[in-house]
């Protein structure tokens, strides 16, 4: 019996996931009603892609979305085809799309093969962590939707807003605050962003310095490394309600307690998709973060 437990640590995972799935079922059961749109035929996969479709005024053509598409809020009423890397071919076909706009990395490959075989146009929108990348996304989506003029207008608008926001956020090197992006504080362990992430890119665009430059991607780091990183400000995702960590709890964490950020109680919370989506609202995110970093106490 003891052996079973060892070999089947996966079993724990499965039972945990089972509970999660039941919760997910309860939540998803609510969004089964779709907006009736006779001429809509687009499936949008990826939060920023959906945002761009809506910003182009083509939201009425959306027929379904993926789990990460949460803005604008009305898209929550669309059927959800699930997580973009584990799409079900029949589920995707059942929403009757003639065009699928997808962020880079949708899958699995077998599902995409079948979907393409069913005469559905599949357009992949490359990921981007730069202003130019956002404009390219808009360009590709506008072309795929057959509204290049609107795309040009939106791109010009976004480009102007971004360059203005970036210019305003620009600061002399010595004056930049060190920002630590904390993805989660599960069990008192800090999961923070290194370089090469959307969080890292946004921090730099908003005139800050990523407090961590030792590794790529999001990783759990030790308490001492947080102390060494000496962040002036903690940046987190705003999970709304009581799901986020309260300020008192955050600054009481041993890892955070000794940082400059804890002394000034500086924490910034922004909506995850707004901050990390790199879509039409990124200029807004840059401004919000820059204001939060410097407006009050510099």
């Amino acid at each position: 019996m003891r052996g079973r437990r060892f070999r089947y640590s996966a079993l724990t995972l499965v039972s945990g996931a089972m509970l999660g799935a039941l919760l997910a079922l309860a939540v998803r059961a609510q969004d089964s009603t779709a907006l009736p749109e006779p001429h809509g035929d687009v499936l949008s996969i990826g939060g920023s892609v959906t945002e761009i479709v809506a910003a182009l005024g083509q939201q009425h053509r959306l027929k379904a979305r993926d789990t990460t598409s949460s803005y604008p809020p009305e898209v929550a009423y669309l059927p959800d085809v699930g997580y973009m890397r584990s799409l079900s071919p029949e589920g995707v076909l059942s929403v009757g799309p003639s065009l699928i706009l997808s962020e880079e990395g949708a899958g699995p490959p077998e599902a995409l093969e079948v979907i393409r075989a069913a005469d559905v146009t599949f357009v992949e929108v490359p990921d981007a962590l730069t202003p130019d990348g956002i404009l390219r996304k808009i360009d590709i989506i506008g072309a795929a939707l057959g509204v290049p003029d609107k795309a040009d207008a939106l791109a010009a608008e976004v480009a102007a807003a971004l360059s203005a926001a970036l210019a305003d956020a620009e600061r002399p090197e010595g004056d930049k605050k060190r920002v630590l992006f904390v993805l989660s504080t599960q069990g008192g362990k800090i999961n923070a962003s290194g370089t090469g992430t959307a969080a890292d890119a946004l921090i730099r665009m908003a005139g800050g310095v990523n407090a961590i430059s030792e590794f790529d991607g999001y990783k759990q780091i030790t308490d001492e490394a947080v102390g060494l990183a000496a962040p002036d400000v903690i940046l987190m995702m705003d999970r709304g309600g009581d799901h986020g960590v309260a300020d008192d709890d955050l600054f009481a964490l041993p890892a955070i307690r000794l940082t400059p950020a804890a002394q000034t109680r500086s924490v910034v919370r922004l909506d995850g998709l707004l901050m990390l989506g790199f879509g039409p609202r990124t200029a807004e995110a840059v401004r919000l973060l820059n204001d939060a970093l410097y407006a009050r106490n510099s």
Partner: protein
Amino acid sequence: MTAIPDTATLPRDRLSRARSLHWVLAGGLALACIASLQIGATDVTLFAMLAKLAQGEPLSHMERVVLFDIRLPRLAMGVLVGAALAVSGAAMQGLFRNPLADPGIVGVGAGAGLGAILAIVLGTLLPVWMIDRIGNQMVPVAAFLGGWGSTILLYRVSTRQGQTSVATMLLAGIALGALAGALSGILVYIADDQQLRDLTFWGLGSLAGASWAKVLSAGPLILLSIGGALMLGRGLNGLALGEATAAHIGIHVQRLKSVAILAVAGATGAAVAVSGGIGFIGIVVPHLLRLASGPDHRTLLLNSALLGATLLILADVIARVVIAPAELPIGIVTAVLGAPVFLWILLRRRGLVEP
């Protein structure tokens, strides 16, 4: 004292009951197959299409894709994987003379998991031409090699002078499982977010990636292995009396062990490779059947194959419609159905685990 069971006729009754169960289960499987082709996220149904064909109307492109490229390969894979897992479970329980053994006991699960994680996390480090060539097939191939390799290793470790020690195999399996778990842990640590999500989904299993290519690559090995396992019925019955007794009544115990282990490694390794980790089928199915028709392996193995295939297909139907158009990983469905049944078995047969 009057109610002494008629020992001469009881086993025969059981045997005939188990044999007639073959037909019931085969019927159930056929119904499940029809349901699997009939029900899905789209409103394409088998009956509507048959009606169309009967009237000589051509099928639409969409209907052909849904039926022939999505549901049929998925059904075929469900039958193969379900039968493979259930037969492997029954064979392992017979071989280890432990009703709680399942295919994972010979290290297939841990090894396949390690292989899959290696491919997902380190696959991107391969040269580009290799990724282009084998990219899509990398995870299944690595999972199969990992599962098969760890079983063979375990088998070699516990075999000395031509004798395989079941006890050594059990203990070495724990050690090997812990080692594979630790290596997997290291890889999980260096994985990025996307890879972690891929890992989680792989671990929960799914038939959503079913394709004819996968069916054709895993099918022959699974069928061969199931065929091999189905011939072990008499031997496993003898083994239930103990290894020495089995040898005395003329059973070639060592050959029995080799065939059982190779068959389980082949069937489960190939099944896990194409569908990810799907739990509980291997334990629950043989137990349900033992409760229904007794422990005779001559019928238990075939019945397990039939019921395993049926349950996995039904679980897959549930997985694909319950949150349509999205889809649950099938491992969640089998666990939701399987865990309570497993607990019930544990409680009912507490005597077996707590002597």
